């Protein structure tokens, strides 16, 4: 079984110029990403009560010239579909989402998961015309910075799907 390094993911987030991480805790990324981010001065962690708030905050930050990452679970992303539709897609804003896939089996592609709540994620993003990247093992981590850069360069949303629990180191 492969590993996924939380430290390397955070390094990519920082390399992508992200100054703010907006988050509702997600069990997939809680230990490997959110816990280390809590201790860092930068990026600044902003805790929100609900994920669609985060879409709005990221939009405001984008207008202010600041890069942000919304760190959530796919359940929260699904709950925020209308905000993503209106603010990220129809207003063409660079909303970058890092989404932990709750209950996805390691080494199984999301759309091949036995879990309905996982299997539907990519088809929904396809239907919405939103770019996404699977982050399943270390080789995928290098996709993160270019994905963030592309979202801001082209002013459009992107979703980074975290397919297994990253280690804290």
């Amino acid at each position: 079984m492969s590993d996924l390094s939380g430290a390397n993911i955070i390094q990519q987030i920082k390399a992508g110029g992200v100054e703010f991480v907006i988050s509702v805790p997600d069990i997939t990324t809680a230990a490997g990403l959110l816990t280390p981010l809590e201790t860092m001065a930068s990026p600044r962690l902003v805790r929100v009560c609900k994920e669609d708030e985060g879409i709005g905050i990221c939009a405001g930050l984008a207008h202010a010239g600041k890069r942000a990452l919304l760190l959530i679970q796919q359940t929260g992303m699904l709950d925020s579909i209308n905000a993503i539709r209106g603010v990220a897609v129809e207003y063409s804003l660079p909303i970058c989402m890092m989404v932990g896939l709750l209950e996805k089996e390691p080494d199984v592609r999301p759309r091949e998961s036995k879990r309905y709540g996982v299997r539907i994620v990519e088809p929904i993003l396809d239907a919405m015309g939103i770019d996404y990247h699977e982050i399943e093992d270390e080789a995928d981590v290098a996709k993160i910075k270019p994905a963030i850069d592309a979202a801001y360069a082209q002013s459009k949303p992107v979703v980074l799907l975290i397919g297994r629990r990253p280690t804290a180191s």
Partner: protein
Amino acid sequence: MMNHRKCFEALARHIAADDIVLPVYSSAFEWLDVRPSALNYTAHGAMGLASSHGLGLALGRPDRRVIVLDGDGSLLMNIGTLVTAAAAAPKNFYHFVCENGTYEANGGHPIPNKGKVNFAALARGAGYGSVHEFSDLQNFEQQIGAVLAEPGPVFGVLKVEPARPQQRDYNRIHGADVRQMFKEAIKAR
């Protein structure tokens, strides 16, 4: 209860050229008439997210005041925003709710528990240290300048009458040209 338009006219006298204002729905149409500016930010989607956009702007641009003119129905759709903003605590963030008890842009139906919801208490309970409530125009005119001089986050309840009948051209608040104008204005200043 204050006249919505007169309340905004009094507020506008205390808004600086560099302030960013985020008015919502019926407040947006009133505000755009009272204080036209490229720094009015009206394209915040729906479902109560204006205060969240405003919080992002306040965090990203601490050099300028960000003023949200929310609706009561909108705030109820995103009530957690009070907790989030109180925790993030930007000193340049001013969140006002225009309380008229109705979903004015959606047929004038009442909000849940109209007349009994206490928005000031909700804000205090969420952790806001500075909370104000205004229902008298003269009192509002006398105090709003001092309220806007306080360090944020500040929350205010504006008890207003329903807005006058409006021509609601939603392109005025969501249109691509309006969004582009805001982007250019905030970059330029």
